[in-house]
């Protein structure tokens, strides 16, 4: 009864966030924010021992590009926890952020114009 391995899959509701992140409050990589875009890289995760949350996160990111906030929303995990887990997966080369266009190449005025044009097309 108590040995049911599937009982762990919904553990996120029961496990304190600092347990999932093994006590860490901050990601190893700075610069991940709510709208950083992330995607899984092709590769084999089997050499790495992943906790259940990271396994779910990786499976989600295999499907395509999502923002950090969306990953957190889909997995029902706090954003702080997701940032820590994503950083770890980036360190092991399993996940990457989509390289944003450097600010110098995209002036704010141009970004705002693109936003306005996009809204006008809705």
């Amino acid at each position, binding site marked *: 009864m108590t040995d049911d391995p599937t009982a762990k899959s919904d553990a996120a509701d029961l496990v304190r966030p600092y347990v999932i992140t093994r006590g860490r409050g901050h990601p190893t990589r700075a610069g991940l924010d709510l709208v950083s875009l992330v995607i899984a890289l092709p590769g084999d995760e089997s050499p790495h021992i992943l906790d259940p949350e990271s396994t779910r996160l990786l499976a989600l990111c295999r499907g*395509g590009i999502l923002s950090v906030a969306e990953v957190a929303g889909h997995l029902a995990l706090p954003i702080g926890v997701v940032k820590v887990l994503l950083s770890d997966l980036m360190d092991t080369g399993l996940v990457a952020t989509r390289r944003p266009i450097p600010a110098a190449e995209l002036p704010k005025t141009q970004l705002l114009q693109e936003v306005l044009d996009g809204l006008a097309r809705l």
Partner: protein
Amino acid sequence: MALPVSDGAAADVYLADSVKIAAKILIVGHFAVGKTTFVGTMSEIRPLSTEETMTQAGAHVDDLTGAGRKTTTTVALDFGRLTLSDRLVLYLFGTPGQQRFAQVWKDMTVGALGALVLIDPQRFDQSFDVIGLLEEYDVPYAVAVNRFDGSVEHPLEKLRAALDLLPDTPLVTCDARDRASSTEALMALVRYLQLRASKELA
């Protein structure tokens, strides 16, 4: 929990491969003003919610048991997504406007283009806190009066004076349930941001 990829709607979950830029606009306002409705009206995906847990939010909470106890506060953020072009996606974050969520505000405001402040004309006085926070964090904003019924009690110019808005700050009306109306309010904000950006360059 099932992953969204398993429900056969992967195309509606993930961004197009061509998307390279993510922009962020905050939808702010006091409790129950219509932030979640606004985000839901505009979003192309089913709006998502995520929680941020803070352990140091209890600074203003009287704690008679002493310093050994931490206070944990959970803040829910509702957000939605709008793909605006092949390469550009806009995220709208509904953000609670209470001072005690300052830690979350720091996170939320980084990189935000600006904020749209939703206001209930009957309860506009509850908006001072959130406007104060936007000014403190230097986030440019426009104000949208949600479901303005033209009541003579609070004509727009009276509201502008009551809210102590600068002459340049856009003050528009919108219906958060209506997509065209909500889009107009966002466009008013972005035009204002353009004006500010061009002044910065000048």
